[in-house]
């Protein structure tokens, strides 16, 4: 290669590298920054206001507190182009923005508006003449709209103006709409809270569900060993104690797969005491997926189902397989049995909670609510009989940690 050729290749290489990196960075910035402006000036102002509202109002989704209200009042004031906006719970002004904010915020609501206007959940009150004891206060008129969650009035939104202008029906309507926007966010807070409680309740329900059938059988199996093999019986009883400890221990929503598998192991030891050689189990889990975070009691119900449907009632016994595959950013866990199999209708029913299967719909629901609808359970028949239940979940999800 001659010298000039070599420099030419240098330049070519540099050029290729430079273009690749520059294009990638440009593309990333392009995607990351706000979309292009195609709106008229009014449209832009409107868009900016709505954008600001959608950014700040979700703070209220964490509930009506002074901190969250404080984050929202400024935006609301700009949105309504009023001189002052305040959010109050049933009796206190939690946060205020604009005129008079410094001496009203944190005060009882009655310092601004007479209390008898604040009871009805469906009434927007117009106050044509505000009387503030503080002489320097410039606020003259106000509209007070209710914040309603589940039909109850839980607070008020106060919108004030300094000018003595007459307030019309239009003002009351606009403020009323803004208040219902805020109410909707607060309602979401309640819904989210309820969802969380529901998830915890589901976990509790599942814990209660495992026990009776299995506990009876396990204890019977242990009892049968007490005379013939006391050491084994003692060991089994210890396993049983650890098993119940995991199952009933506090409200730990997530554990690592390694922990969950440890629990499955104890469960299977107890089942083996009962079924003996009839229950064959293969555990085939890639070590890379052991640290993945799973909802507590998510794999065990799958295994218990496999044991029920693959072994019970079959004198010749059966084979349960637990497989764990590393799919890169995702993980696939599969529990199979070689029992009678399952029809597609029955599989659907099991996932909706209508059909057979202990807790499968519960596990599916918890997976979906934690990781999103792209993850969850799939139930299918296998060739040559048997059932396979497949669970998919991501290796990492921000905010989901094994406690």
């Amino acid at each position, binding site marked *: *290669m*001659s010298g000039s050729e*070599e420099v030419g*290749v*240098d*330049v*070519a*290489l*540099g*050029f*290729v*590298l*430079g273009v*690749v*990196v*520059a294009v990638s*960075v440009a*593309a*990333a*910035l392009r995607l*990351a920054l706000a979309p292009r402006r195609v709106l008229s000036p009014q449209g832009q102002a409107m868009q900016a206001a709505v954008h600001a509202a959608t950014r700040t109002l979700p703070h209220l989704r964490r509930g009506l507190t002074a901190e969250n209200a404080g984050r929202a009042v400024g935006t609301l004031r700009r949105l309504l182009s009023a001189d002052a906006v305040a959010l109050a719970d049933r009796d206190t002004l939690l946060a205020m923005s604009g005129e008079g904010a410094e001496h009203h915020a944190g005060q009882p609501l009655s310092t601004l508006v007479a209390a008898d206007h604040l009871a009805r959940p469906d009434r927007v009150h117009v106050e044509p003449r505000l009387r503030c004891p503080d002489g320097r206060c410039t606020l003259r008129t106000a509209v007070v709209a209710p914040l309603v969650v589940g039909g109850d009035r839980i607070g008020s939104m106060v919108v004030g103006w300094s000018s003595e202008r007459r307030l019309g029906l239009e003002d009351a309507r606009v403020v009323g709409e803004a208040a219902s926007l805020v109410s909707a966010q607060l309602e979401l807070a309640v819904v989210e809270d309820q969802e969380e409680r529901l998830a915890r309740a589901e976990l509790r329900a599942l814990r209660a569900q495992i026990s009776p059938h299995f506990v009876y059988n396990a204890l019977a199996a242990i009892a049968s060993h007490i005379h013939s093999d006391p050491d084994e019986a003692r060991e089994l009883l210890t396993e049983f104690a650890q098993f119940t400890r995991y199952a009933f*221990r*506090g409200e730990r929503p997530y*554990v*690592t797969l*390694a*922990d969950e*598998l*440890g629990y*499955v*192991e104890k469960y*299977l030891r107890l089942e083996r005491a009962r079924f003996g050689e009839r229950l064959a*189990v*293969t*555990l*085939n*889990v*890639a*070590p*890379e997926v*052991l*640290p993945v*975070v799973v909802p507590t009691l998510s794999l065990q119900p799958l295994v218990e189902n496999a044991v029920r449907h693959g072994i019970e009632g079959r004198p010749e016994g059966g084979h349960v397989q637990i497989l764990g*595959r*590393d*799919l*890169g*950013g*995702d993980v*696939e866990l599969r529990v199979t049995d070689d029992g009678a199999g399952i029809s597609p209708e029955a599989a659907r029913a099991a996932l909706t909670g209508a059909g057979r299967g202990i807790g499968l719909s519960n596990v599916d629901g918890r997976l979906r609510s934690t990781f999103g609808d*792209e*993850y969850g359970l799939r139930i299918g028949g296998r060739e040559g009989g048997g059932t396979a239940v497949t669970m*998919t979940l991501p*290796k*990492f999800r*921000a*905010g989901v*940690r*094994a*406690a």
Partner: protein
Amino acid sequence: MIAIAAVAAVTIGAIGLGVYGVRFARTTSDLFVASRAVTPWFNAAAISGEYLSAASFLGIAGLEMKLGASALWLPIGFTAGYLALLLFVAAPLRRLGSYTIPDFAEARLGARRLRLLAAVLVLAIGGLYLVPQLKGAGLTLREVTGAPYWVGIAVVGLVVALNVALGGMRGITYVQAFQYWVKTFAIVLPACVLLIVLGGLPERAALFGRELPVAPQGGARIVLEQRTPVVFPRAATVRVDGVVVSAGPGARRTLPRGELVVAAGTTLPVGEGIRAQTGARWSRPVAPGGGTASPLFVYSLLIATFLGTMGLPHILARFYTSPDGTAARRTTVRVLGLLGLFYLFPVVYGLLGRVLVPALYVTGQTDSVVLALPEAAWPGLGGELLGALVAAGAVAAFMSTASGLLVSIAGTTSFDLWPGYGVGARLVRFRLAAVAGMAVPAGVALFARHVDISVLVGWAFALAASTFCPLLLLGIWWTRLTAAGAAAGMATGALTATAAIVTGLAGGNGGSALGEGPVDALLAQPAAVTVPLAFAAMFVVSRWTRPPRETDAAMLALHLPDGLGASAMR
């Protein structure tokens, strides 16, 4: 022939282990889960196996032969990078549980857009790091089979891409651990055997003396595949295909294609981009003045490698396999030991190569010294067997590293840049991305033939150190970091580092042929400037903006020691 068989065996073995080995490595019918977690020793070997790339196996010895002892800062930096990881990153990151750097960025700073920027950088760093692996593949296959340079790139690129696309390279901790020992064995055994056969380091003059490289006993016969511009450091008379070429000291000549014959003891001409160095100068780790031995360049390189290791996407993903923060830390300590062991040996090849295969100075292909040395030092079956062993080790080196990189690239693409909805859709995109992700670096590798492997790797490290290192260090240790600050810092680091490298390339310094000034040194290895710039940008913009709400929760997750949480209740 033996070498081809060895290379084929390693390739097939890697694929076979990927497909079947996973099964054998994880199948048992007993139930003891606790004993199945990957132990720190295994994970450390897996990390080392994935980390020891073509740059380590071929590049260090090649650069050492070309530049001298100053090239040995490279393995020091490669290893020391794990010290930084150990001290500041490994345990907190494992406690958080994140699998990729975009995961970390989102979890720590609560900004989905930051994921995107991080993902683009993963692609840039991974792609840049793939290029030298493919170059190593091209060199090795040419050395072994005589096939053209592009054949090796095509073959290895295709094999790795298909293997990754078909799922053979995911979750293969035990395979990568095995690869570490293959590579270590393949570099240690020939080095030791050759030293025994030669009775120590021959001609100590080569190391500490004042001589320039000369043709060995019996003269040198060098096949020039193309017209080769050379510089004669001393007056010499050589012949190419019988045609006599005479030159005075310092003369430049362009030798025609053909067989170059140099009589024993004659000072060899050196190819373009190589400076003929006396033993004394060659053996100095740092020298005043410019070039790759200048203190500025050495410090810049040390910064790039020390801080860049933590930003290599395929390495961090391996730490996910550690069960907890303590295990992650233990693993890192073991990695330091395993890498230290390996890096003792490339040095031997560089030293011996200077004396025994000085022909490489003429052609400029010093990157092949590890491959060429055994047969040159020990003609006969012994040398051939050892040559086959190092070739197999080199293939193992770039196969394992390239696979790890490609898994990261394809994973990031199918999760962040071109996300599929649902596990199945993502798998399809992962496969497509694996093939496409290999095509681009392969194209660049065809052009990058004359850029030294270790220089290319140095750039990947510079980019990682200027972008992900500030994100990780400040993200883990500074509560005031904001998403805007992180984005600004990473963009600053990426743009300045890229600009410097591209400017250097356009200015014609294709790697080690370095101008004398400090600017040249910084264009060749910009980390000393770009890393502080990235930190500064991240710091300043963060002071201006508000830290995200997630900060406290993320900090707690990062720093709450293992065993204080639920595991204490076990």
